[in-house]
């Protein structure tokens, strides 16, 4: 008897510039919780989007119960018995739970039928719901329950859960696991997408590990430990490092001390007691899987958010935690946030105009409120030449540049102002290999000339290549720093998966 419900064979899906899934092949057993584990960008989301009919594969076959399975929309996928609970909920905030559930159903159903069905589902799977409560009044866990119930109303055989615990409190996680176990007992299959090692071991039966679009391994979780999973997830990335520590001075010029910040928003991560020190000329890396507090921390480091609950930031013996971005630039602190389009640059403006987003005291761009266009243009031309930005000229719109060129331009703009410290988030995110290389080179060169750099990145390879020290952020907490040339990759992997020892 075949107990396989889903066969995935040779699925390949490429996007411009990246192959998200390369010949992905594995089977999913019926009546089990099957985990797909991987870093960001490993190809997990692409794969489940294909299963749910949101993307079409370039090649490959999927068989559901040994029959060919091909869907082109989520509605069709649901009809065939596959349901999905997304990480971000799609509920109407102003409507009640009942109204949201009615809206999500593909076939017609009366209110009384619905209520009967709901009562049944609620009690069977530990999913209590207040039907008349408006969605706005619900916690993240309760909203997720609504989403799960909505999918269960269609009686799916396979339930895809995308990072389901990322917005939940520990208690809510417990109760979710009870629900999942009840669903499996009933004969349903759960496909569990995650990057948390602990969860894979505690509730999943089988795990498929993906890295750079490929399947690394599919195996039972029973003989795995967090450590073996971490190694497989990250691969053997440690090569001999040529990072040079010689130029770093003993003097600490940037210190973050016990920063805590609460947001009261399930989609933001509270920061918990974050401390670290950066020395002159040092590149300090902060690793971690997306959504663990990186962007929240970045906003505090740049001064875009100065509403911290406690803690301090000291730079050159000045307390700066209450300074806005411009006041920090006045002290020669420079920053590049993750998003080029609409954050560190405005796509609708020309390259020259984009220079003005980040002004330092010695730039001499403005006199009595009037823009000195010649100075700005000269600066822009300098950046273009020095950082080999490919563009027709400084009057080209930022949106006309490729991602890599625009990133080179933005980073060049910051470096050209000779900052004392550069704080940069995901410096090579979404750009081609050539630009990636030249950006990393510029950062290393900058540090050798005495600038301290803080790099926040999900790309562990990158951090290992360029940083001197590295620590990991997980759930808003920052680990202690490790010297990059001494740390074991497994150690970082465990920390990224939330496993401290």
């Amino acid at each position, binding site marked *: 008897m075949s107990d396989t419900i889903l066969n995935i064979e040779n699925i390949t899906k490429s996007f411009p510039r990246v192959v998200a899934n390369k010949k992905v092949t594995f089977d999913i057993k019926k009546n089990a919780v099957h985990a797909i584990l991987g870093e960001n960008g490993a190809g997990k989301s692409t794969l489940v989007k294909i299963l749910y009919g949101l993307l079409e594969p370039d090649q490959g076959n999927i068989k559901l119960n040994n029959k060919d399975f091909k869907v082109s929309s989520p509605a069709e996928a649901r009809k065939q018995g596959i349901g999905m609970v997304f990480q971000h909920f799609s509920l109407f905030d102003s409507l009640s739970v009942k109204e949201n559930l009615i809206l999500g159903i593909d076939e017609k159903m009366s209110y009384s039928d619905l209520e009967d069905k709901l009562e049944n589902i609620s009690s069977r799977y530990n999913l209590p719901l207040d039907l008349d409560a408006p969605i706005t009044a619900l916690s993240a866990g309760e909203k997720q329950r609504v989403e799960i119930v909505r999918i269960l109303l269609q009686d799916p055989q396979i339930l895809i859960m995308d990072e389901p615990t990322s917005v939940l409190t520990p208690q809510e996680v417990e109760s979710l696991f009870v629900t999942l176990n009840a669903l499996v007992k009933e004969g349903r299959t759960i496909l569990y997408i995650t990057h948390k090692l602990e969860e894979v071991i505690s509730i999943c039966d089988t795990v498929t590990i993906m890295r750079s679009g490929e399947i690394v391994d599919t195996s039972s979780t029973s003989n795995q430990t967090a450590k073996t999973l971490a190694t497989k997830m990250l691969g053997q990335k440690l090569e001999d490092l040529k990072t040079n520590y010689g130029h770093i001075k003993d003097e600490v010029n940037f210190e973050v001390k016990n920063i805590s910040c609460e947001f009261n928003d399930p989609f933001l991560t509270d920061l918990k007691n974050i401390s670290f020190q950066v020395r002159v000329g040092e590149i300090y890396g902060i690793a971690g899987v997306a959504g663990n507090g990186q962007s929240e921390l970045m906003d505090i480091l740049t001064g875009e958010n100065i509403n911290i609950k406690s803690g301090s930031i000291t730079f050159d013996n000045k307390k700066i935690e209450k300074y806005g971005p411009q006041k920090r*630039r006045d002290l020669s602190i420079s920053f590049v946030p993750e998003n080029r389009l609409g*954050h560190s*640059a405005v796509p609708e*403006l020309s390259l020259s105009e984009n220079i003005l*987003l980040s002004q330092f005291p010695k730039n001499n761009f403005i006199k009595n*409120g*009037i823009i000195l266009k010649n100075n700005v243009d000269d600066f822009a031309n300098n950046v273009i030449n020095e950082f080999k930005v490919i563009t027709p000229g400084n009057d080209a719109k930022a949106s006309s540049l490729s991602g890599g060129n625009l990133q080179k331009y933005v980073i060049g703009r910051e470096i050209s102002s000779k900052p004392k410290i550069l704080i940069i988030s995901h410096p090579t995110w979404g750009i081609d290999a050539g630009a990636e290389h030249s950006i990393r080179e510029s950062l290393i060169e900058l540090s050798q000339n005495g600038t301290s750099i803080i790099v926040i990145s999900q790309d562990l390879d990158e951090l290992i290549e360029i940083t001197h020290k590295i620590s990991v952020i997980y759930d808003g907490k920052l680990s202690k720093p490790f010297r990059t040339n001494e740390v074991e990759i497994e150690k970082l992997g465990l920390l990224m998966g939330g496993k401290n020892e």
Partner: protein
Amino acid sequence: MNSLFPSVVSRSQSSGLMNFFVPIISIVLTLITGSIIFILLGFDPVYALYTFFISPISSTYGISELFVKATPLALIAIGLSYCFKNNIYNIGAEGQLTMGAIFGGGIGILFHDTNAFWLLPLMIFAGAIGGALWGLIPAILKTKFNTNEILTSLMLVYVALFILDYLVVGPWKDPFGYSFPKSRPFSESGRMPLLFDGLRVHFGLIITLFLIFVSWFIFSKTIFGFQLKVSGYSSKAARYAGFNQTTLVFFAFAICGAFAGIAGLAEVSGPIGLLYRDISPNYGFTAIIVAFLGRLHPIGIIFASLVIALTYLGAEDAQLFLQIPSAVGFIFQGLVLFYLLGAELLINYKLTYKKLL
């Protein structure tokens, strides 16, 4: 088979040339639609369009009238550009205009028997202050309480109109006015000087051209103009740059209110000469169309104000010679806005028909 309804898909690159042509295309489409409406009403479209768009400006007096109407439209529209560039939707210019007329006109009534060179400048200044203060109310509500400025600025229009109503039937009623709801006339030195003998075009036109020039300078040469623009494109980028967005909101509303207030004062101290109920044929609302038709650009706004001013004149002539209600002018204004927004959408997005399986 393709689906019946198209879906809207973003174009990766919008054409710069088309951006320039949008206003022209909108006007052409408006004329075509207008002709169809005239035909349906049983008029010869050529004659109707001639009556509407050519005959009003075929005399010196007509051209002067065109400038009289275009003056407040252009002045308010350039003020609105400060808001719209910053992505603030100030719909309440009509109220700010009314408040400017009340403040400036109040000075005129107070000094109704004074003849002095300082009177008109003082009235203009008071008009600017009145408009700016009225504009700052939605700014405060927006920045402190996060209210939607579209609603608050619009509602304040009606508040301002009722205040004017109250004043002209109450405390400011002309004691020699046979109980008509109007104020005393301003003294001669409280009136906008006429530019030419026998024509109504007045000094407000010079003020408007001057403020348009100043605005052009601010938009293109100063860091303040740059900050407005960045904040309009992306508030995140503005925050990254460290621009104070609260201050920008205040400035945009205050400047827009001041310009609308001056426009209101120029109306009452120019062609009208006193305060009464209907000082503005919706200039404050129509200027929104002018601002967008002119692509928020100073030169564009000058041309757009002339085009829209023509619809006011054309409506009067149409009523006179074709016996069509003058509301047809509003139809033309509506059509221009409709085609403008439609063309704008199609520049940035395209329609595609999804394949159904």
